[in-house]
């Protein structure tokens, strides 16, 4: 065969191999500059020297789902832990407890109604569902899209999980949507060019989002077994630990995001939900949301440590 003929032969390989090779790649898009800001604004994580933001979709293996016990405001609750393949890296995500999801589901109503509503987010009846659907069951959402779609979200999406992969990628998992079409997508890496670790164990980075510069820190800690883990928080730290909400639960600022790597697997921790519960485990009612305890730091730290020490 002449060497030029080889690519003709390769042109006839089985479709499934092409689909396999390009399936994820096709979902990887360079996000337009303008939308990059909107996206990052929601993710709340960036770097001063971030250059390109690339959206990726993960392969989620539900067959590897397991139940794990974690603490939530002093109560042992069951979380669902998903295995996610991010390119060739394995990541495990702890989803909110089913108990919490159940409560949120009640708040959210029947989210599938929204899917069928031709007015989508412009529909006054369903608009609240749109805003609350990030509280919905992760597996349902991802199962629904089958990881098939990827869309650049508008600005009204919510971040549900934040975690970090390796040292130079920030990744967020969120559900997002556009008009009448719901797309729950697993998103976002912001490439970090330089992120130096300071002597005090904290590295800082920042970026400007819609005119506002946001600063973040990563704090390196060690659990009781000597395994290093990282806590990510928005500066100023005290503000970070006191997440705030509006009365409709629509504005949720990130509480604690942390990650730990054990045996080559990255586990992430997200403490958004804790903020919606009182210390005794009872749900914080809507009216008192704006008056949520201002002194959550100690509690947050306590359960973050419990989580980290479980590795």
């Amino acid at each position, binding site marked *: *065969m002449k060497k030029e003929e080889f690519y003709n032969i390769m*042109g006839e390989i*089985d479709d499934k191999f092409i689909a*396999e*090779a390009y*399936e994820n*790649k096709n979902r990887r898009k360079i996000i337009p500059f303008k939308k990059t800001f909107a996206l990052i604004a929601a993710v709340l994580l960036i770097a001063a020297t971030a250059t390109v933001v690339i959206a990726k979709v993960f392969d989620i293996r539900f067959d590897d789902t397991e139940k794990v016990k974690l603490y939530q405001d002093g109560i042992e609750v069951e979380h669902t832990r998903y295995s996610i393949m991010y390119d060739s890296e394995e990541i495990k995500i702890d989803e909110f407890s089913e108990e919490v999801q159940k409560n949120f589901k009640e708040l959210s109503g029947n989210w599938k109604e929204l899917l069928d509503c031709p007015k989508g987010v412009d529909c006054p009846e369903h608009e609240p569902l749109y805003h609350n659907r990030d509280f919905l069951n992760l597996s349902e959402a991802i199962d629904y899209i089958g990881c098939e*779609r990827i869309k650049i979200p508008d600005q009204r999406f919510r971040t549900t999980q934040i975690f970090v992969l390796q040292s130079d990628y920030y990744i967020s998992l969120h559900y997002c949507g556009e008009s009448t079409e719901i797309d729950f997508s697993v998103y976002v890496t912001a490439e970090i060019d330089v992120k130096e670790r300071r002597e005090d164990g904290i590295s800082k980075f920042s970026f400007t989002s819609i005119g506002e510069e946001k600063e973040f820190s990563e704090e390196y800690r060690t659990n009781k077994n000597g395994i290093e883990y990282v806590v990510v928080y928005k500066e100023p730290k005290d503000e970070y630990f006191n997440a705030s909400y509006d009365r409709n639960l629509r504005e949720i600022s990130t509480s604690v995001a942390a990650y730990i790597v054990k045996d080559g697997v990255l586990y992430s921790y997200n403490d958004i939900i804790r903020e919606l519960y009182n210390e005794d485990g009872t749900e914080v009612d809507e009216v008192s949301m704006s008056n949520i305890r201002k002194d959550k730091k100690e509690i947050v730290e306590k359960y973050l440590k419990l989580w980290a020490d479980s590795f």
Partner: protein
Amino acid sequence: MDDKEIIALYFKRDEEAIPATEKKYGAYCLSVAKNILGNDEDAKECLNDTLLVLWNEIPPKKPKVFLSFIGKITRNLSLNIYRKNTAEKRGGTELPAILDEMAEFVSDREDIECNFERKELIAEINTFLEKLPAEKRKMFVLRYWGFESAAEIAKRFGKKETAVHSALQRIREKLKKHLAERGLEL
């Protein structure tokens, strides 16, 4: 919009099929075309041609794997343009490098003797690919089907460029051995 919905638009002769395809697969087609053609202008032209071919071919054709179906059309159209451009002394893509890689791998004899041997070769390459680990298989397909640069493949898999070259070299040798054991050669 999922693939079935897009294909249904073609069958209904609904012109929305074109923008829907472009929205979902435009970037992918441009990427395939640009790897071969090396410039945006030709790649864009190739994307437009791809959409036209799709419009003309569906129906009656009903692709099982839409992504691959589109990719193959784009690839073939791009190669045609590449051949034309090469004749006009244009180019500047990964193709020459890939052909150099293949030079020590293929027999350099005249075209394969018959259609039967060609089909057998393709079938054996498919068998070989099936057995490869997924990551290696993807690398091979991206390089020799998609004409991607080693640098881009390395970036995608989080590896060094040299590691990609080494992996591809090993895969080529394995493929050669696989075919030789079956009395075939490229």
